[in-house]
């Protein structure tokens, strides 16, 4: 410890605040996870370990509702993430490998628009848009809205990855008689793959987790997991909601961890 005394880098209290930071970030989720295993129907008292609320999610009176909501969520997330990732990959290729051009800054602005506009404003705008063109609200409106705001999230890791790939790789491919299309599919795409995978996973989670926009553009009676959870929470926090939440949290953490290691593997 005598070494630390003369370390100009370290400051007293910073370690404690870091621990506090992590506690704040993780403790509420952990507490909810613990209570999801509570045998009691009350959320106040602890009556021992039980998986009854997990069983309740799958077989209980509300299970049909949650299963449908979960199916909607996953179908939308899979399609939205796939489409958004494809669009973002093409966009990144144009932005990073398209030289300088006049519409470049404008395009970058357009891509970051969903990140700059507050989510509630996007939600209102999208609702107004669908309403004014007479588009019936339902799963399709949710999907379209999700594709749009997933694009920047897919774009960021893909373009970051692409910036790290020097263009000499394609030049070498062209020099070795590959066409530009071959240089893209055989060289650039495989090299970009870690970025594409993390872009896809992030877009997937963003779509899966979205509440505000979904809440605005979903039709009456159409639910995704977040809107179903929100509706249930409004009537009081029940243990089965904690079980669903814990499963969803676990799923997100697994996805992000996979994304992290995919990104790391290549460096």
């Amino acid at each position: 410890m005598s070494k630390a005394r003369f370390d100009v880098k370290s400051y007293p209290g910073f370690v404690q605040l870091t621990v506090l930071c992590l506690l704040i970030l993780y403790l509420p989720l952990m507490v909810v996870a613990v209570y999801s295993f509570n045998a009691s129907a009350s959320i106040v008292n602890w009556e021992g370990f039980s998986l009854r609320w997990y069983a309740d999610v799958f077989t209980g009176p509300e299970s049909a509702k949650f299963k449908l909501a979960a199916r909607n969520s996953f179908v939308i997330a899979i399609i939205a993430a796939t489409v958004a990732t494809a669009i973002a990959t093409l966009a990144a290729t144009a932005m990073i490998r398209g030289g300088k051009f006049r519409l470049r800054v404008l395009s970058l602005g357009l891509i970051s628009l969903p990140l700059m506009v507050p989510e509630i404003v996007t939600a209102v705008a999208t609702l107004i848009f669908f309403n004014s063109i007479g588009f019936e609200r339902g799963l399709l409106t949710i999907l379209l809205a999700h594709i749009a705001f997933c694009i920047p999230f897919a774009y960021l890791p893909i373009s970051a990855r692409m910036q790290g790939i020097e263009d000499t790789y394609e030049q070498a491919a062209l020099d070795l008689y590959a066409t530009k299309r071959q240089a893209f599919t055989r060289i650039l795409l495989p090299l970009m793959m870690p970025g594409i995978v993390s872009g896809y996973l992030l877009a997937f989670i963003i779509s899966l987790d979205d509440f505000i926009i979904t809440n605005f553009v979903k039709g009456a009676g159409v639910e995704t997991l977040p809107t179903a959870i929100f509706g249930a929470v409004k009537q009081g926090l029940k243990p089965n909601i904690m079980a669903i939440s814990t499963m969803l949290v676990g799923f997100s953490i697994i996805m992000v961890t996979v994304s992290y290691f995919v990104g790391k593997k290549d460096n």
Partner: protein
Amino acid sequence: MAGGAAGGGSTQGDTYKEVRTWLLLPTWATLSILVLVPVLLMLVYSFLTKEFRGGVIWEFSFAAYDQFFCDRGLFGDEPCSIEWTYITIFWRSIWQAGLATILSLFIGFPTAYFIATRPAHVRPLWVFLITIPYWVNLLIRTVSMRFMLREEGPLNNVLVWSGLTDAPLQMINTNFAVQIGLFYSYLPFMVLPVYAAVERYNFSLSEAAADLYASKWTTLRRIVLPAVKPGVIAGCILVFVPSLGAFLAPDLLGGAKNFMIGSLIEEQFKGNAGNWPFGAAASMILLSVVLIILTIYARQQARAGGKER
């Protein structure tokens, strides 16, 4: 996030410059139709007349903005005096978002600094640890916080059990709960840009300051902080902007008394009581404030960038 998008920018070669228009076409189409046009349409809607069961009548009207800013008495025929109801809600949003930002800075800066001074090979793991909660459903996180802060919740149990308080504290449905919720929601946004700035900081500057008789805290204030200021500002914006328009934290933690702009907007589009033009106008005002903040920030960035060159 705005900073992140701007960072994902510089070009690296022009292998595909002939086809760039085709490559960008899907992006232009999707984002123009689904984001840009809707926002413009919302601007139009804010100048239309409300229909009583939601929706609009296509007649030009200032009514929405008038309602936001003007108090015209009980029968709506008096001259305009300032209507404080909505301005107060707006002001409360700014205040809450501001406090949440300060709280995030107070916890986030030391955390970011601490992580940036770890050995290089463990830093990504720390950053990863900070990022995970961001990817966990915001709704679930807010619900968890509500669970924690409840009157008979774990936090109060600990406080009573440890004897710090005699009776459970009223924490839920207070301004404090909203601040905590916002802080909790966007804390990672503070840590990440500050971390990036501190990681780039040249620590021999601190050593030089110490060598020239500066104390630790003087060094932090006079040397470290000025150097990492861009990261701190970016972090503050990334926390402040989404906090301003937040809906979940005020709705689930604040209750009816602690209304913020997000809840006000949401209310206008739910059920039959809504007023779409008014909701669109409130959204436009929120969007304008955010865009002003981002523009000032971008200008400052450009100026700072220009100075470096």
